[in-house]
């Protein structure tokens, strides 16, 4: 049962509401995470299904990832923290998208799949892909590798519209038709491009709000990945972060006297949104 770890997340988040208990709240939630991981290993060991190479791959990925994450988090300058959070957000979305890809590709090509499976897979890929590339762009902007100013170019709106249409078409193909790896690739690539297009015109003080929004997206992607592999720990935590992140985004935007729509839409060309508001 993942119930204990789920309870730890909720209690942890709750404790983070006041500065006094915030640090312990984070620890409670970390304990919940450790419990979830240990339980997963117990489940896997009980099943006796693990392959040798799979275990090696798992161990290598875990050790490298844990080491890299911990070292980066420990050594980062305080002023560089926002982009690091954004980077961690990107890898979370990427991992969720990878789960969807894995499960979709493990089906035999040409066979029909149930709506209950293909729908979360498609959503997982779209949301995960958008967050992955979007957060990477946000990281680059915060770190100064990409210009922090809003970047807009002629035809950006048209390009956005085309990419959205491609995503919708690819999702319909993925959901409504028999398994075909190319539709999955198309969905993923179009989502990655949309993530870049969405984030690149946003700049300056709006960045934290966007990072928070992408954070909420990752939560949803993780929840969808939970539906795909039928794992309730992912569904609970993902939905929790999705909802909490959405509220947080709204509050952060409200603290700056801006609406979220304003920030996202404002990116599509500052001049355009001003004239639209005048109308």
């Amino acid at each position, binding site marked *: 049962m993942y119930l204990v*770890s789920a309870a730890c*997340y909720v209690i*942890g*988040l709750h404790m*983070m*509401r*006041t*500065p*006094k208990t*915030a*640090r312990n709240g*984070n620890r409670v*939630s970390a304990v919940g*995470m450790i419990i979830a991981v240990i339980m997963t290993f117990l489940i896997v060991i009980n099943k006796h*299904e693990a*392959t040798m190479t*799979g275990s090696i*791959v*798992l161990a290598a*990925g875990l050790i490298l*990832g*844990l080491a*890299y*994450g*911990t070292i980066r*988090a420990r050594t980062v300058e*305080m002023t560089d*923290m926002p982009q690091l*959070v954004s980077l*961690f957000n990107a890898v*979370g979305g*990427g*991992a969720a998208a*990878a*789960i969807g890809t*894995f499960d979709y*590709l493990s089906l035999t090509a040409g066979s029909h799949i149930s709506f*209950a499976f293909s729908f979360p897979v498609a959503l997982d890929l779209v949301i995960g892909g958008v967050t992955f590339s979007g957060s990477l762009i946000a990281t680059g902007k915060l770190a100064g590798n990409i210009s922090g100013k809003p970047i807009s170019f002629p035809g950006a709106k048209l390009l956005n519209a085309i990419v959205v249409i491609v995503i919708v078409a690819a999702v319909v193909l993925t959901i409504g038709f028999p398994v075909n790896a190319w539709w999955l690739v198309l969905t993923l690539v179009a989502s990655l491009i949309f993530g870049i297009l969405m984030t690149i015109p946003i700049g300056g003080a709006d960045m934290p709000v966007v990072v*928070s929004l992408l*954070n909420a997206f990752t*939560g949803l992607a*993780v*929840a969808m990945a939970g539906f795909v*592999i039928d794992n*309730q*720990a*992912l*569904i*609970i*935590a*993902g939905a*929790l*972060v999705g*909802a*909490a*992140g959405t*509220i*947080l985004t709204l*509050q*952060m935007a409200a603290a700056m006297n801006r609406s979220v729509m304003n920030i996202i839409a404002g990116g599509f060309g500052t001049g355009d949104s001003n004239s639209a508001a005048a109308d």
Partner: protein
Amino acid sequence: MSQELYTNIAIFVLSILVGFEVISKIPSTLHTPMMSGANAIHGVVVVGTILIALEAHSVLFYVIAFIAVFLASINVSGGYVVTDRMLQMFSKPKKTDDQKQDGGDK
């Protein structure tokens, strides 16, 4: 629709409601750590990646699984450590107030 799917959807909806409730009104100084904390929680995706990694049976799947596990474990370890550092940093100036209050209570 299967029974399992119903259960999962119910869990999903209830978790969203809990998420909305738990972060209703928080001070704006805590926005960034809260975001970072939530970011660490969705590192739970590592659980999913562990499960798929052990199902892999060919090179393509090993590669995807490795990427998934690697990314997810960065998310989970880095997320918690960075949140902890963040909270450690800005609880320091507050500490004097807290200690005064604690002392007063005793």
